[in-house]
């Protein structure tokens, strides 16, 4: 199991805090009084079966859905209540790895990765190229600089999307189902990459997933969601030793035992 050395030295800074978040869509309760936090420098995993509300939480955290005044604090701000300048600043500090990758197909890998830098900074093009090459080197995709997304495999696409997510050196990286559609070997290498990047860049990572093998490899803290409610929040070891039938079944079946 890959475990980073920084876990022991982690601070108790709460980069993400959610207090009593409730989400109702079309009279259907998706999230009910959800409260949790994610510590700085840790990998926090939101887990639960499909339809438990994991992605809804992520969308709230990214400010894509509105939330009550004190319900959410990400990097000290409520993402759904920012003015234009604050919003720009906020998104500069968050890297997002989307479930379906969301690279622009008409741009090369390098152009895709450079996009946030070109959009948010006035840095010279030579510097941007170096940054892009460095991030591609970190995700081990040096040779794909000039390629188009359609020429890459699924695992390579995820790595390219990860390179784009970290191009701005964000303090917070959010990943939505990073392992979906990947074979176990590629998934493991992507997990390893995320852990290494966390160590290298000192970033906080929030991962939404239901892949048990992935959770066991990378999670420092786990938040277990079931039908829109949090049934567990704590370290991975505590989660594994928990005497809760839903959590036990999730880990038991997820391991394929």
């Amino acid at each position, binding site marked *: 199991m890959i475990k980073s050395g920084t876990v022991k030295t982690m601070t108790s800074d709460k980069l993400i805090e959610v207090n009593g978040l409730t989400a109702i869509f079309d009279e259907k309760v998706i999230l009910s009084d959800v409260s949790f936090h994610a510590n700085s420098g840790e990998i926090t995993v939101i887990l639960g079966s499909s339809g438990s509300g994991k992605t809804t939480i992520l969308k709230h955290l990214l400010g894509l859905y509105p939330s009550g005044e004190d319900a959410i604090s990400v990097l000290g701000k409520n993402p759904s209540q920012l003015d234009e300048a604050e919003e720009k600043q906020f998104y500069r500090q968050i890297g997002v790895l989307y479930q379906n990758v969301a690279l*622009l*197909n008409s741009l090369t890998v390098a152009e895709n990765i450079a996009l946030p830098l070109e959009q948010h900074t006035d*840095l010279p093009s030579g510097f941007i190229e*170096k940054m892009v090459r460095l991030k591609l080197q970190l995700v081990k995709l040096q040779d794909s600089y000039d390629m188009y997304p*359609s020429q890459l495999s699924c695992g390579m696409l995820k790595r390219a999307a990860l390179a784009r997510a970290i191009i701005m050196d964000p303090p917070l990286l959010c990943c939505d189902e990073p392992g979906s559609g990947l074979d176990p070997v590629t998934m493991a290498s992507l997990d390893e990459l995320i852990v290494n990047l966390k160590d290298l860049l000192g970033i906080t990572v929030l991962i939404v997933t239901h892949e048990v093998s992935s959770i066991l490899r990378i999670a420092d803290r786990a938040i277990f969601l079931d039908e829109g409610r949090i049934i567990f929040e704590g370290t991975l070891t505590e989660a594994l030793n928990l005497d809760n039938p839903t959590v036990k079944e999730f880990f038991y079946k997820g391991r394929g035992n």
Partner: protein
Amino acid sequence: MLRRERTAASFLLEDNTLRISGKLSLKEVNQLLSDIGNKLQNYTSDLLIINLDGLDYIDSAGVTAIYYLIDKYRENGVSVDIAGGSTSIRRKLELFRLEKSGLKGSRLKTGFFEMLGSSALYLFNEYILGFFQLAADITYWSVTDLFRKQMSRKGEFYNQAVQIGVNAVLIVGAMSFIIGLVLALQSAAQLRSFGANIYIVDLTVIAMMSEMGPLITAIMVAGRSGSSIAAEIATMKVTSETDALRTMGLFVIVPKMHGGIITLPFLTIIADVLGIAGGLVIAFTYLDISPVVFVHRMEECLYLKDIIFGVIKSVVFAFLIVITGSYFGFRVKQGAEDVGKVTTNAVVVAISLVIIADSIMGLLFY
């Protein structure tokens, strides 16, 4: 010399030493690059020492900025050394160092003639050869499928015939009528001044039958169906649907080709008839030629050869429109933006080919 607040970074270039202290992250990089990068032109010494003793924090952007500056100074013949820096800063300088292989671009510089030759070869292989190969493929499959009936989904020929032909009747008919009307109107004034009123019939009928009818129909169909074929195939290719159909033994273009070739001659005849009707209206209202006289004269000046010639033309046009639409559809490489581009190209090229083919056939069958 420049000083910034202690909370951010401070860059101090004195003699041949650049001291960077405080925090160097993406936010401060621009300042560093513009301040120190600009001083390069006036830098006289051939040595620069970058001292990192006062640096508290650096991220990957900061490290890249330092290496970027080093490269810039080295390109100008200044040798650069890094001094000081805590263990963690030194470690990051190592971790975020761009490997040499990563620095080089993958593109090689080519000479003018090599570029010219390779572009010509690319143009020939990609466009001309590709077009003819696809045309040959489609012709083969369309003809053999007439006997085997295996290449297209059941009912698809009917769907395509309706989409390409039947749905275009109204617009093609209306346009032909208007063009027949305008053609006759423009000629009427000229013919009246010579007292050659009756020749309005010859002019309208021959022009509509052998030229305008097939051409208007083909241009309308190229705009309507050529674009939709290109967009449909391009989107199917992007989403791998064409691969799925191919593995099921279906060739998506065959029913389109059949639909186009069968319906375009009928559309052309409808266009001919309505165009002549437009001429008849003008002949009657402006030149006092009664419909009976018009039809009688038409019987004299219209030969079967003109009608057949128009129909043959329309078959060739249908072939060109479907091939061009499919060819550009299959050329799509990337996603959404490319689909738009190939669709535009398909329409432009299809209309151009139709006009070129029309003039060639005009010369041949004159």
